[in-house]
């Protein structure tokens, strides 16, 4: 009851017209920044921190959280309409989102993404209010060995992402792992696969890779003599999902909320892991899994819900323990510190009014984002009315700007172009791209947690099987990998999945 009173007090603070304006501006700015490919939430929030420095603490944090939300959604817009992921966590949305756009269902995809984001975000924030402390403590149970075991489960879902050919899926997955190894070797601290190029010291920029592999390769694959793919600009009636689409999205959103919320609690997980694993979950468990990859609503609703649930759940470790669970949250934490607020339990004792105002504004931000974006879906989709040749040119410019702004370095533009060519080659060879993205994201996390685990156990591999949580997870991973073998009665069930 006391919590509720404090939350209501928070709403009173957050509902002042100034703070509402900050939240609204934040959502709007964030969306605009998110639409620029490459400028993801991290860069977006970091770029706009200076704008907020002159505001009072509550107002500035409210605005930053709203920017954070906005960038998340803005990234989705370009993923769906232009096949160019605006940021890492909406990379996987491009697969079915763009397929829906080709079918003239762009409006429906965007609406579902907005509603899913709203649901995921709101439920996760409710979790923050209801049980922040125990949830935060739960996240701590996951040490390096458990983290590694989780990654094993994640990688095992590659099985589900395989299309017609398991071999091709493994090739794609291995490629992703290989690319993720470029950079400073976390074990020895020495550069590996960098060929003496300083820019490669930190590895290949993930966003540049996905913009290249998904977006650029798509453009490159328009052959000269082939008619350009017809992308319908939807009429007003088609802006909103049909009853069937709603019905099919609901379970995907529920699963996405679960995946995103659970993973968001774990420090060190990034939002892209959540959206990827949500997609893989749909591939594995959805009733319509055979349609995924060809414009299934689950492929948009699931991951989009998951990444917002993740983003909000990731605030739980920040508020309860003062631990930034993801790079974006780390940037937010920096903003807290600049305002003289130290995130963590002391925030609620020393600045409880601000803390609750921020939490209230998270709810408000979710609502604003919905109100702002659903009416705008029509405006966004009108982009598709631009004649294809012009649109293609505009997209190319966007991609270059986007790749450049990741680290403000031209090198990333070259990376993007290089991976565009690679993506083209993979398409021509009929190699699915999803497994590569999966391993590209999970690879570094997996390597790091493996290394940390073995340092803890001083080289003893039983560390993974002697701890209950990680033993269960490793078992689950093995089960998923072996599941096609167990289905001997229906040997075609998985292998005949259409191309991912």
């Amino acid at each position, binding site marked *: 009851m006391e919590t509720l009173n404090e939350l209501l007090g928070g709403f009173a603070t957050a509902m002042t017209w100034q703070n509402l304006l900050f939240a609204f*501006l934040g959502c*709007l*700015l964030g969306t*605009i920044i998110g639409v620029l490919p490459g400028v993801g939430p*991290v860069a977006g929030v*970091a770029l706009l*921190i*200076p*704008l907020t*420095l*002159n505001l009072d603490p509550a107002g500035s944090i409210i605005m930053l959280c709203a920017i954070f939300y906005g960038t998340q959604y803005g990234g989705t817009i370009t993923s769906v309409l232009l096949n160019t992921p605006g940021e890492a966590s909406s990379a996987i949305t491009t697969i079915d989102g763009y397929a829906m756009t080709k079918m003239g269902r762009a409006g429906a995809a965007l609406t579902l993404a907005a509603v899913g984001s709203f649901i995921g975000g709101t439920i996760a924030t409710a979790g923050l209010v209801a049980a922040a402390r125990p949830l935060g403590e739960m996240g*701590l*149970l*996951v*040490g*390096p*060995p458990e983290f590694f075991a989780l990654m094993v489960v994640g990688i095992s879902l590659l099985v589900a992402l395989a299309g017609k050919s398991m071999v091709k899926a493994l090739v794609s997955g291995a490629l992703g792992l290989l690319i993720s190894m470029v950079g*400073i070797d*976390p*074990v*020895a*601290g*020495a*550069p590996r696969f960098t060929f003496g190029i*300083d*820019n490669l*010291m*930190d590895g290949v920029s993930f966003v540049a890779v996905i913009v290249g592999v998904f977006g650029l390769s798509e453009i490159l694959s328009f052959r000269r003599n082939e008619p350009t793919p017809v992308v319908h600009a939807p009429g007003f009636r088609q802006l909103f999902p049909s009853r069937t689409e709603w019905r099919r999205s609901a379970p995907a959103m529920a699963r996405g909320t679960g995946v995103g919320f659970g993973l968001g609690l774990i*420090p*060190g997980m990034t939002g892209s892991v959540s959206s990827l694993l949500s997609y893989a979950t749909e591939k594995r468990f959805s009733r319509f899994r055979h349609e995924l990859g060809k414009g299934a609503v689950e492929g948009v609703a699931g991951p989009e819900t998951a990444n917002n649930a993740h983003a909000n759940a990731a605030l739980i*470790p920040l508020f309860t*323990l*003062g*631990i*930034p669970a993801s790079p974006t949250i*780390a*940037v*937010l*934490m*920096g*903003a807290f*510190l*600049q305002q*003289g607020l*130290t995130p*963590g*339990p*002391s925030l609620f004792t020393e600045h409880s009014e601000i803390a609750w105002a921020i939490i209230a504004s998270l709810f408000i931000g979710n609502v604003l984002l919905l109100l702002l974006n659903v009416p705008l879906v029509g*405006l966004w989709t*009108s*982009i598709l009315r*631009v004649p294809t040749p012009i649109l293609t040119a505009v997209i190319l410019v966007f991609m270059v700007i986007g790749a450049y702004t990741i*680290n*403000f370095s031209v090198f990333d533009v070259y990376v993007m172009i290089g991976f565009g060519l690679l993506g083209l080659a993979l398409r021509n060879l009929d190699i699915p791209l999803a497994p590569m993205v999966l391993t590209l994201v999970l690879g570094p996390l997996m390597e*790091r947690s493996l*290394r*940390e685990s073995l*340092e*803890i156990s*001083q080289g003893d591999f039983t560390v993974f099987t002697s701890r209950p949580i990680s033993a269960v997870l490793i078992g689950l991973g093995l089960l998923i990998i072996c599941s096609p073998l167990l289905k001997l009665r229906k040997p075609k069930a998985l292998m005949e999945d259409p191309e991912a």
Partner: protein
Amino acid sequence: MSRKKIFAAVAAASLLALTGCGANAGASNSAAAAGDFPKKGKSIDLIVAFSSGGAVDTAARLIQPVLEKELGTNVEVINKPGAGGQIGYTALTSAKPDGYTLGATGSPSVVVSPLDPARGAKYTRDSFQPLGRQVIDPTVIAVQPDSPYQTLKELLEAVKAKPKSLTASTTGIQTGEHFALAQIQESTGSEFAPVHFSEGASQATTAFLGKHVDVLVANVSDVNDLSKQGKARVLGVMSGDRAPSLPDIPTFKESGYDLTAGTARGYSAPAGLPADVAKKLEAAIEKAIEDPAVVQKMKDLGLQTSYLNGTDYQKFWAGQEDDFKKVLPLVQKKD
């Protein structure tokens, strides 16, 4: 199409308007007229070799407005994170020494990265011109609140008797914490099993809170809050005097170990600045670091301001380099 155009125009205009409001356009005339540095309207880049939101970045952004006021021109904080600072330091040292590029330099990263040939750094200590030190953040050693070890001596004796019986966190290979462990090993013979959390202090702290590592090696600013909440028992601070924010915690020296270690952060330019430009920058940086509001905010973050001018910062840097060179073999990966 036209709707889109209008929208884009409005968006662009609002962005411009907002950045305009955010930029500090108030140039004051407190800067003396030595030469024509800095030129009106030419902004100074302050390169931070770590990502935004971290301690180095926060400190740089705190002094930025004061620097702007003192120098009468825009100062832009630019983050070039990666490779343990190496990317940002490379950018700083390869810039023209004309005063329009400065950088935040933090040790041990800036001191250590050129020492190990395996890292292939293109700069040495001589590539930098130190302008001023801002903070020193000593290393601390903490154990779990339910740990049997009540004092530093008990802990170190126990580990000396059974080498590698306890795990200790660092923020990565050849980081300050790793060097601190090497110094302890070299002078007391107590060898911990290091666990490197290359993501940084927050990951190390998380693992410690989850009891996945036994000993937390971190900076004072990382443990202030944990100590207050009773989530960590800090046993010793590796500095000359007790840390103001942890007045009850003895220094290593008080416990009988003459060791100091820690992170120091300051600001430098590429070597070869013209003398009058260097003087002007040094004065502005001193003003910014010593600004009461900045000092207070640093204090809120648990950081003790400890200003040194360019010359003294250079000496301090050289001293740290000698300390690190001594234990370098201990922190290099044996092939």
